């Protein structure tokens, strides 16, 4: 009797699940991994967990930089110009742009957005008001920024700021905590048509400024709490566009449908470093840092930690987004090549003699012991840390891998209370930001004080002078020459130990949509996480004709 009941229940519930036909023209995207969606479309506050693509898809910025082509694409602005004295930057705004409620977009909105950043410092993540003095709408389609000093890289910060409509946000009591449930924006997808805890959908902006775009009728987002769930949906063809880490992607995903399943993992992510705390002897000695670096077998490291998705870092530590900036001489630096004998010689020179037990001794006779700190659960870094520890032990250094809970690890890193740690680096449209946070004294904070980066706490006046000159020039050949000099200085000083550039994960399924960026057609990064490239992709995709 009971068995019969069970069988009946099973039959009732288990009628074969047929996947329902998916609505045509609706693009399924997997970017964020969450178990339930919380309604938030605030584009201004970086600390807000706003739903993708709020910052570049719902809202838009003035110009878009794509590292794949190394070009700025005019967007809400048609162009920009510096004044003669490089103290004023003017953007010419695109005429005929409308907000999604039909109101015209003007220079007033741009000026108002930056005024909001001034009133609420928490919104000013890029710190634009450190170099901007004033912003004015000169006429309906011209906005002018007065700079307090000549600072050419500031253009990028201004150009990539999402712009909000004045007539909506001037009524918002607190733009920091405003969740903006019904966004009014200029982007291709502004209408929240569905919002539930497991799914949300964004429909077309009825007033979008690019005629006939977007060709995609709506974006749909399903909640996947973990990578495994998201990858399952991707492999099954339920997701059209994703930015997930997929192990053995060519076998598990591409091979299932080689005609449609595409992946492109260009090395445009931030470079991952082994940071030495240069305030602690003997890590303040460049020979020791270079010795540690030469002890590492990076070929094996990228194989083991990153499934071979990346390459060993070169001596400039730059990722491939900066390929045009890379200085060939600096990149040749031998201190990132695996050479255990040379590493041992460097330690001998630095006075760290080998003891009878094979361990290197510091000046006080104590063995050199170094802890490598990583975040427990970040499996790629944990694997990298294991390889690093093993290689350093071959050099006679007592290296131990220590895993911490993220918060504890980050607090130690920021305050400089570590010996060696694996972590990311900072990027911008040019290598300027990257090197500023690697070796400018202006970014060094004392031990015990929180630092946003430059956790290894290294400053070099000579490099800083080059960076300062870089800030003041907009002549391209001069910029290149200065940046090459910075790279040579970096390679000489080895303030940090680069391991590998991170890939930018992007997968596409062209069974239902065409127009995804590929290695052959790199008009943008394929990774949806890459903002504002996502705007270029969202306006280029088109449904396949059935």
């Amino acid at each position, binding site marked *: 009797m009971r068995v019969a009941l069970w069988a009946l229940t099973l039959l009732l*519930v*288990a009628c*074969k*699940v047929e996947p*329902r036909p998916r*609505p045509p023209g609706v693009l399924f995207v997997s970017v964020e991994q*969450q*178990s*339930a*969606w*919380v*309604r*938030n479309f605030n584009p201004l*506050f*970086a*600390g*807000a*967990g706003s739903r993708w693509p709020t910052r570049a898809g719902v809202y838009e910025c003035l110009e878009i930089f794509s590292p794949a082509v190394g070009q700025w694409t005019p967007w809400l602005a048609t162009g920009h110009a510096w004044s003669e004295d490089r103290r004023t930057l003017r953007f010419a705004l695109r005429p005929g742009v409308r907000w999604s409620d039909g109101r015209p977009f003007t220079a007033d909105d741009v000026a108002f957005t930056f005024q909001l950043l001034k009133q*609420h*410092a*928490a919104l*000013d*993540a*890029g*710190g634009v008001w*450190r170099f901007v003095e004033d912003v004015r709408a000169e006429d309906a389609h011209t906005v002018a920024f007065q700079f307090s000093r000549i600072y050419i890289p500031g253009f990028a910060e201004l150009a990539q700021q999402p712009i909000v409509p004045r007539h909506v946000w001037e009524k918002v009591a607190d733009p*920091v*905590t*405003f*969740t903006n449930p019904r966004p009014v924006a200029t982007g291709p997808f502004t209408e929240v048509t569905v919002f*539930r*805890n*497991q799914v949300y959908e964004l429909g077309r902006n009825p007033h979008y400024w690019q005629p006939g775009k977007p060709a995609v009728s709506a974006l*749909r987002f*399903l*909640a*996947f*709490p*973990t990578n495994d*769930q998201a990858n*399952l*949906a991707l492999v099954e063809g339920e997701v059209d566009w994703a930015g997930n880490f997929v192990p053995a992607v060519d076998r598990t995903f591409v091979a299932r449908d080689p005609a449609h399943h595409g992946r492109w993992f260009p090395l445009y992510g*931030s470079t991952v470093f082994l940071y030495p705390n240069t305030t602690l002897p003997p890590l303040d000695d460049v020979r020791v840092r270079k010795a540690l670096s030469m002890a590492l077998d990076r070929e094996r490291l990228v194989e083991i930690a990153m499934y071979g998705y990346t390459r060993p870092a070169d001596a400039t530590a730059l990722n491939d987004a900066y390929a045009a900036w890379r200085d060939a001489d600096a990149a040749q630096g031998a201190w990132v090549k695996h050479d255990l004998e040379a590493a041992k010689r460097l330690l001998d020179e630095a006075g760290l003699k080998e003891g009878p037990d094979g361990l290197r001794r510091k000046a006080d006779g104590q063995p050199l012991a170094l802890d490598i700190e990583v975040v427990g659960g970040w499996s790629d870094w944990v694997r990298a840390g294991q390889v690093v520890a093993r290689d350093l032990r071959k050099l006679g250094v007592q290296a131990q891998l220590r895993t*911490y*809970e*993220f*918060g*504890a*690890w*980050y*607090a130690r890193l920021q305050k400089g209370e570590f010996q060696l740690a694996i972590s*990311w*680096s*900072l990027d911008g449209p040019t290598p300027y930001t990257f090197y500023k*946070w690697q070796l400018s004294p202006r970014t060094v*904070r004392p031990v015990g004080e*929180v*630092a*946003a*980066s430059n956790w290894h706490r290294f400053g070099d006046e000579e490099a800083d002078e080059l960076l300062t000159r870089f800030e003041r020039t907009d002549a391209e050949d001069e910029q290149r020459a200065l940046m090459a000099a910075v790279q040579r200085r970096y390679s000489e000083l080895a303030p940090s130990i680069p391991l590998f550039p991170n890939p930018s994960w992007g997968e596409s399924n062209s069974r239902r949509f065409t127009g995804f960026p590929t290695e052959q057609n790199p008009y943008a990064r394929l990774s949806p996480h890459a903002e504002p490239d996502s705007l270029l992709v969202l306006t280029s995709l088109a449904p396949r004709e059935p």
Partner: protein
Amino acid sequence: MAYVLRRLGFYLLAAWASLTLNFVIPRLAPGDPASAMFARFEGRVQPEAMVALRAAFGFTEAPWYVQYATYLKHLLRGDLGLSYAYYPARVSEVIGTGLLWTLGLAGCAVIISFTLGSMLGVLAAWNRGGWLDATVAPALAFLGAFPYFWLAMLALYLFGFGLGWFPLRHAYSHDLEPALSFTFAADVARHAFLPAASIVVATLGGWMLSMRNTMVATLGTDTLRLAHAKGLPPRQVMLRYAARNALLPNVTGFGMALGFVLSGSLLTEIVFSYPGTGYLLILAVRNQDYPLMQGLFLTITFAVLAANFAVDLLCLWLDPRTRAHA
């Protein structure tokens, strides 16, 4: 009545103690929530903006007793604050997205598991050494030794991925509007079946064994001999005399088990992408989201206390001795 009031007093005390622990424990954990929060920007935030951000999030350096007073004041207003991880959403709103699903899924699973397990235990004890007692009980105990999530993954792989009988994720199909309709209810049931079944299978053995063992002890008592001697029908003896007396310890256990429901179904929820509170808890811990953590723990604590109070009342009804004392 006095007994009920006494129990109520005890529960109020327990509630206060848990409120206080809830305040203290996250603050003893290493690391700094502000840093964890900002780390998610991977350096997109300039240090100058950090100070303003800290202020915006209300990370104060106020002494602990001031923080404690504010905490209690807000709680009395039912204000759990703003979540850090989902900033600037309210904690109550974030928990609200998942609470009903978790209560529904895990609550049903525990009730099914308890009822079914106790019934099986009664039958196993009544026919000691019978096939049920000899095969099903050890088999269930064996299954119960597996972790929930492992059974869940196995079920997902076999019945969801392999055979395609059940959906792979979520509480209902994403193209259905939630509505009070048969279609929607059936869809929810189909989505809940595998996760619930994996919890039931993992916990059934425990209920069955504890019921069987207390029942066996009860069967040896004089009351039962008398009942048999009086010539009552066996079924009546089994249910009215033996089972009712043996149920008491199991009911107490049931109150305890409900607490594990809200937190314990966490891994099951993650395997099936079930939009419950389980995943929220992991997220809160990972981001050191104190307000969300506290909100979740409070929800769990109060649910357990309420369940135990209900169990106390149930015991009053089941066990005449408590009434005699009351």
